[in-house]
Structures are given as structure tokens and as C-alpha cells.
């Protein structure tokens, strides 16, 4: 057997840190990077006698997510305690949701090659993050930073619908884009705002029974997610092909060695003794609250894709590309607003073409592009009205990128890049070209189309490329009586 004989089955559990200003059960701030324990209040350090109070902002973000994925928002959900001892878990339990999560079901559409694939979601639930153990700089002791303790998380669990590392990455990217799109998470993966656990198993192709799975914890980049799954799939296939059996366990990915390692087996798994937290009332979400949140939702990527196709006549591919992230969509919409609907396709081409290439080359996000949507729109307008040839347009774009000018018109003016479209001026230039190239004129008249192109070239050369090629064409043909 070979890898191709095995089907890979993956489900992801993603922790998205919700972008509330304060923590999920206390008033302490959630900002990243403060001095250790500067953002840990009495509730976060679990002093005797303190109690949690739910942050409604975190709930509102969970509702937003539920609406965005078409899930069911539970009218009543319950916070539960997940009990285990760890120094960075101050209460000795994590407040999470267990039997009754705030969001059930829903789905997310990803692109696999040229096709769309729908990934079903199991649930999404609210919970608090733990603190952080600091093992360096404490002379053999461990330091505890509780700034992150109590940070709100939405844990989003997918069904095992993913069939390859590439699909898992596509799903994670789509989810990453969505949570930023609906503004519930900043998506900063370096800071741990968005991280995935992958449940991976393999089975002989054609089998409908799930294989034994392993869970790979805490994958905080798309590349690690892909590498970890690929490694894990090979590891499992090797074991099975050697006649072995997979042990259900939790594994860690080591990016340095590019491998996964066992963390604990099922037998060693904690008994978390979940039970409803008696300090918190059941979370009740009224239909009115849901409607309020719904009325404040931005247009979702799926809807926007459709609108870009119908309103601007974009292809499905273009529409999908432009809605892959909120920043791209926002850029495109601002450019179209400034350039006019008729120039939408032109804007789209520039965003997906020159702009994307340039951003890629300099490893920049579109949000940080030196060329603003308004500047790009100005450029598009001058292309559309024939002022700029595509060659000159690239020069203007470069000038805008480097900050050499503030808008296309100013650059065109300053550099004299304007196409010569004045018929009178062009006519006299063409007359000179005809006079100076009698041989080519002769050949053209004898039926050689190639000679015509040479004449156009001469005219362009004489105008240093600023002539409108189409106009040169027309004038030449008229003058030559063709």
C-alpha cells in the first residue's frame, strides 16, 4: 500500500481569542505585552472569595460568529468548570462550556482547487484562557504570568470533514479570515490569538469507519498546521502498514525537528470532572439580542462574492479572491467607490495583479499597502480614459508605491507621461513619419501588413511612447487611405 491508498480524516478545534477590551469574567484589560501580572486582578489570580461575572461583549461576539456560520444560537447555554491542577490555572479549574455550548452547528465554505467544499461545524463555545508559565530567568524556578488568564476564547470545533493537510489549511485560513471579517478576533497568530488543535486519523480508502485519532495541540501557524498534519499522516500510515495500531493520544508538534511527539495517552488523560459552574447563571440569549447583533453584522464574504459578480460583472474566481479577506474586500470596495462602478473590473485586475504581486514581493498585507485604494482608483480612471497606456500606468503605479507622488494625475503632470491624444499634434507627427519612411509606406500599400506595424512603431518612437497607440493606428490608416 502507499499513501494514496489511505484516506486522511481531520477535524480542527480552533481557539480564537475574542477582541474584548476586558477579560471574560473580570474587568482586567486583555491588551498583549504588558509587564507580567500587571493585568491580573483579584478575580484573575483567584483570591479567596472572588467571583466571576460574565462579559457580555464576549457573548455578543459569539453570537456574531454563530450568525456568520449559520449556526444555532442557544437560547440557554451553561458555563461549566473543567477541573485540573496547573500553576497557570489559578482557580484549579477553567470556566468553559461543556454540554450546552453557545453555538451549535453551522458551516464554513472553503475552496479546494476550483471547487467549493462545505465544512460542517460541530459547535463553538466560550471559555477563558489560562496564564503562562515562564521557565527562563528564574534560577531554576518557574515564573507565572497571569495576564492572559481569563482572556476570552471562542473554541470552534469542526466535524471531521477535512481530507488533507491542504484542506485543513484552507479551512483554517477561511476561519481566520472570517473571525477578522466579523471583527471578533484580531487573528494575530504570533501572539496566540488564533491557534488550532488538529484531530488526525487515517483509514483505508473506501472504508467508512473512522480510524483511531491523535490530537496535535497548539498549532499557531498555517505552515506548522500543514507540516504537523503531513508528518502525523505519514507516521500513522507507517505504523498501520507495519501492522501496528494507533494509540489514541495527545501529541505536540516540534517545529525545529518537524515532527510530532507524544504528550499523553488516553489512559493518562485527565478526568476533568465537568459540572455547571454554580457561580454563574445559565447564559440566556433572547431573540431580541440576536436580532440586535444581526442588524449590526457586516456583509458576509459569501454574500459579498455574489454581489461582486452580479453588480460588477466579476468572475466567480475574481469575486472569491477579492473576498478572501476583509482587508482585500475593503480595499476593492473603496477603490470602486472612487473609480466608479464601470471601472470595477479594472480595479479588480490591478488589485489581483500588480498590487498583489508587489505586496507579495515585499511581504506586506494589503492593509499596509503604500498605494491607497483612492490612489489606485485615480490610476484606473486615467487608464480607462486613455490618458495612460498600460506601460505608463505601471510607471505611475511605481511612483505611487514609492511615494514619489500623491496621486496619478500629479505624477502624470510632473513627468509629462500623458498620452498624446491631441489629434492635431499626432497628425503632424504622423505626416512626418510617412514622409520619412517612404519605403515602408510603399510596402504597406503593396499589401505588407508588417510594414504598417513598423510605421506605428516609428510614430510611437517619435512621441517617446506617449502617443495613444489606438489613435496612431486610426490616423495612419486614414492617412494611408487604407
Amino acid at each position, binding site marked *: 500500500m502507499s499513501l494514496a491508498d489511505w484516506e486522511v480524516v481531520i477535524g480542527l478545534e480552533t481557539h480564537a481569542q475574542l477582541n474584548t477590551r476586558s477579560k471574560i469574567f473580570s474587568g482586567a484589560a486583555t491588551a498583549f505585552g504588558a509587564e507580567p501580572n500587571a493585568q491580573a486582578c483579584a478575580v484573575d489570580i483567584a*483570591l*479567596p*472569595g472572588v467571583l466571576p*461575572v460574565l462579559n457580555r461583549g464576549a457573548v455578543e461576539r459569539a453570537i456574531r460568529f454563530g450568525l456568520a456560520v449559520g449556526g444555532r444560537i442557544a437560547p440557554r447555554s451553561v458555563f461549566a468548570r473543567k477541573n485540573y491542577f496547573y500553576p497557570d490555572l*489559578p482557580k*484549579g479549574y477553567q470556566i468553559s462550556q461543556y454540554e450546552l455550548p453557545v453555538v451549535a452547528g453551522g458551516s464554513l465554505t472553503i475552496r479546494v482547487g476550483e471547487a467549493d467544499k462545505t465544512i460542517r461545524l460541530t459547535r463553538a463555545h466560550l471559555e477563558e484562557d489560562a496564564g503562562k508559565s515562564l521557565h527562563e530567568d528564574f534560577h531554576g524556578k518557574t515564573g507565572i504570568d497571569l495576564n492572559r488568564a481569563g482572556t476570552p476564547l471562542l473554541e470552534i470545533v469542526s466535524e471531521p470533514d477535512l481530507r488533507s493537510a491542504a484542506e485543513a489549511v484552507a479551512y483554517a485560513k477561511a476561519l481566520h479570515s472570517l473571525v477578522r471579517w466579523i471583527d471578533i478576533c484580531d487573528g494575530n497568530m504570533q501572539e496566540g490569538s488564533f491557534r488550532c488543535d488538529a484531530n488526525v486519523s487515517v483509514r483505508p480508502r473506501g472504508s467508512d469507519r473512522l480510524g483511531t485519532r491523535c490530537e496535535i495541540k497548539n498549532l499557531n501557524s498555517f505552515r506548522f498546521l500543514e507540516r504537523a498534519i503531513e508528518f502525523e499522516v505519514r507516521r500513522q500510515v507507517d505504523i498501520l502498514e507495519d501492522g501496528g495500531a494507533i494509540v489514541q493520544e495527545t501529541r505536540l508538534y516540534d517545529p525545529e525537528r518537524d515532527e510530532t511527539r507524544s504528550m499523553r495517552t488516553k489512559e493518562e488523560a485527565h478526568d476533568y*470532572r465537568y459540572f455547571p459552574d*454554580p457561580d454563574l447563571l445559565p447564559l440566556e440569549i433572547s431573540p431580541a439580542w440576536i436580532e440586535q447583533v444581526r442588524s449590526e453584522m457586516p456583509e458576509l464574504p459569501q454574500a459579498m462574492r455574489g454581489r461582486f459578480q452580479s453588480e460588477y460583472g466579476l468572475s466567480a474566481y475574481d469575486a472569491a479572491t477579492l473576498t478572501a479577506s476583509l482587508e482585500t474586500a475593503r480595499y476593492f470596495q473603496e477603490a470602486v467607490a472612487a473609480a466608479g462602478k464601470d471601472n470595477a473590473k479594472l480595479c479588480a485586475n490591478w488589485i489581483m495583479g500588480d498590487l498583489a504581486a508587489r505586496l507579495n514581493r515585499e511581504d506586506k498585507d494589503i492593509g499596509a499597502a503604500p498605494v491607497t485604494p483612492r490612489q489606485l482608483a485615480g490610476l484606473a480612471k486615467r487608464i480607462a480614459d486613455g490618458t495612460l497606456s498600460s506601460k505608463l500606468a505601471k510607471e505611475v503605479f511605481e511612483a505611487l508605491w514609492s511615494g514619489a507622488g500623491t496621486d496619478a494625475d500629479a505624477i502624470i503632470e510632473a513627468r509629462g507621461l500623458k498620452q498624446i491624444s491631441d489629434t492635431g499634434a499626432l497628425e503632424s507627427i504622423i505626416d512626418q513619419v510617412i514622409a520619412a519612411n517612404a519605403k515602408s509606406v510603399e510596402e504597406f500599400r503593396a499589401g505588407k501588413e508588417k510594414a504598417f506595424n513598423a510605421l506605428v512603431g516609428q510614430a510611437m518612437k517619435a512621441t517617446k511612447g506617449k502617443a495613444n497607440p489606438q489613435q496612431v493606428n486610426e490616423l495612419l490608416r486614414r492617412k494611408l487611405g487604407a
Partner: protein
Amino acid sequence: MIHATLKELSAALARKEISSVELTTLFLERIERLNPRLNAFITVDRQRSLAMARAADARIAAGQATVLTGIPLAHKDIFCAEGWLTTCGSKILSNFVSPYDAHVIEQFNAAGAVILGKTNMDEFAMGSSNETSYYGPVRNPWDTDTVPGGSSGGSAAAVAARLAPAATGTDTGGSIRQPAALTGISGIKPTYGVVSRYGMIAFASSLDQGGPMAKTAEDCALLLNTMAGFDARDSTSLERPREDYTRDLERPLTGLRIGLPREFFAEGLADDVRRAVEEAIAEYRRLGARTVEVSLPNLNLSVPVYYVIAPAEASSNLSRFDGVRYGYRVPEYADLLDMYCKTRAQGFGAEVKRRILIGTYVLSHGYYDAYYLQAQKIRRLIAQDYAEAFRHCDVIMGPTSPTVAFPLGAKTDDPVQMYLNDIYTIGAPLAGLPALSVPCGFGAGGLPVGLHMIGNYFSEARLFNVAHRFQRATDWHTRAPANI
């Protein structure tokens, strides 16, 4: 002065017959003299108390006094008070000085009351005799060879022995009412959610409720006026308008329907207690009340249900005491696990460990449904029993405790016997109902007997009324132990 009620003390302070400093000093000196025998206080801090008393005197002089300004109060050591050692009766918190005030303390401080000290208690409020305290047992001032009840035994003994005019307590299964009964004072556990639990160290979150303990029901009403109140920091605190719990004190009892659950007067009730309670009920009839028999068919399930739910919650609530951030940590350990194990093994006493083990067991995978879930279902049935009884009566009455105070050590080897002490008091917290105990006579050995009354939700003012009219007609509440 030491026998005066809060109302009388408040009037004396207002008339400047005595200053808060004098009053506070009087009680501090009594504590100094009598506490070595009773062990009712864990912490006394003369300087702090007197500083508060001076501030209270200034406030009285400025004409900005409330009814509690300048009154010294003893607080159960379960309430966090800023700058005060707050131990919860445990070695594991034997070095914990609270950096913040509980809501209850905040409210008393705002009213200008003086903190007289922190009272002894069963460790983490787990006990019915005050023998589980790391700081040693509290002795009952009526007979120092007997227990004062628990877990608020220190507060009860302090009030009974006139070491404090009044005190705070907390009640999870009877921890205010049973010690009140055993020491001949009055105490109420309010409706769940009336008093904020913020800063009150949790034992069993769904049952814990703070309340006042004093010589009279009227004093309890006065204290609850300050102690109760919505607190946004406790999600189970109830957002209701403030009420004056003294408003109905004098209302006549004509037409009052007293429900007598037949299960309260069945097997297990000592004869001396039965006699005193029946006489008290006869007094109520003379006051114009009539009695009806009611039934609480699931009463015998309340102890087992309680001993599933309370330990379950406690096992989780007490996880934070791990030696990592505050409190006791064992000095020598090999690694993290060793530190956890030794710290908790040494930091907790036997009863606390027993309950953590029970709680851990009933929440474990495979047992949760059979124990915890089942207990929650029965808890609802118990609440329904009370709801049904209140269709026929205004207040349920019976004994607070099946016996008078028992000798120290008598039940320490038999936890089940100890747990059965709470048979009459456990139902109210399981249902979230308010319940009160007042002294109603004496039993064997001249030890006090408590009359227990349970009201419907938010009927505190009515309970105070029913208790107050009884105390106007009797003088049990004015009796104090000899030799104090």
C-alpha cells in the same frame, strides 16, 4: 451595657452616653479576658478596631451617623477584610492577609460599624460543631465542655458570651441557625442571593449565604438592612430594591398560619427539644396564630443530597488553595506535584479532605449521573415540597437542631451522626429559602433550644415579625450564660 441590644447601643451612642471607643474597648477587654476559655476569635486587632471606633466617634460628632455607626461587630473569618488575617479556619490560609473587602464588610464599613475581630469557625465552614477549625474548637459559653455548633460557632459563642454585641455568619447547611440554637441566640439565613457572596470564601457556591447573628430577631433585621444588597460582582446576587427588614416587626400574628411538618417531629428528635419547641408553638397559638400539619416527604433525602452537592462544589472551590500564589506552601518539596500534594495534605484538615474526596468522587467520569445529576433532581423535588407546604401555611416551624449542644468530641469519630445534626436546617439552603432560629427554652443540662422557622422566598421581613412578636412575649433571648 454588654446585654444591650443594637437598638439600645445605637441610641446610647447617639445620645453620647458612651463613645464607640469606650464601647469597643469594653468588648475588647471582655474578649481578652474570656476568649482564652471560649476560643471564639481567631484574630483580634486592638489598634485597627480602635482606629475604626475613633473614626466612628468623629462621624457621630459630625452628625453623620447611621444606626450602626460605632457599633462593634464580630465577623466570621470567612469574610475577607482588607488588612485582616482571613483564615477560613484553615492552616492553608493561616498566613493570608486579605488585600480586599468582601461586599458585606464594605457595607458595614460604609455604615460606620467597627470590626471587633474575626471569629473562629469550622475549617472552610465544614462542620456542625466547630471542632474542625485549625485554630482549635470553640467552646459553648453555656457549658464549656460542649460544642457551640458550627460552622459559625465562633460568632455564636461570641454573641452568647457577650464578647460582641452581634456578629456575621454564613450558612450552607445550617451554619448560622444551628450554632444560634445551640448558644441561645438569634440568627437568619436569608433567601439565596440577598447577601452578596463576593469576598465570602466559598464552600458550596449554590448554597452559601451570609447572614446576621445577634441576641434578638430585631437586631438581626437591623443588621440585614445593611448586610443585604445587590452586588454586580456576584452573578447570583439578586437585583431587588432595598427593603427595610424592620418594617413589619410589630405586625400582630393574628391569622398567621404555622406549618408543622410531621417529619420534623418524628424519630430522632430529643424529648427536651421537642418539649421546648411544642411550648413555643403553644405560645404562638396564644398570640393568635393557628397551626396546620404539612409534609416534607423528601426530608430524609436532604442530608444525602446535600452531602453530594456541597462536597462536589467544595472539591472544585478549594482547588485554588494550591500553594502557588498565596497561603500556606510546604517548605520542602521535590517537584510541582510533590508541592501540590504535600501542601494540600498538610494545609487541609481531615474533614475538609473527606469532603474534597467525596466531591471529587461524585463528579468523576461514570459517577456524575448517578450522584451529582441525581442529587440535583432530588434538590428540585425538595424545593417543590416546600412550595407545596407554603400553599397551606405562611411559615414552617420546628426544631433547629435535634438535640441541645453535645459534648466536645462526642461525634467527631462518626461523621454521619454529625451530618444528621443538620437534618432540619439543610432543606432551606437546598431550596434557597430564608430561615431563622430563635431561642425558645432550655433542655437537658440547662442548654438552649432553638426554634426554627422557614419562610417563603423574600419573606425575611415576615420572619423577623414572627420571631420578634415571640421575643416580645418571652424572655428566652435575654438569658445569658452564667460565669461570663
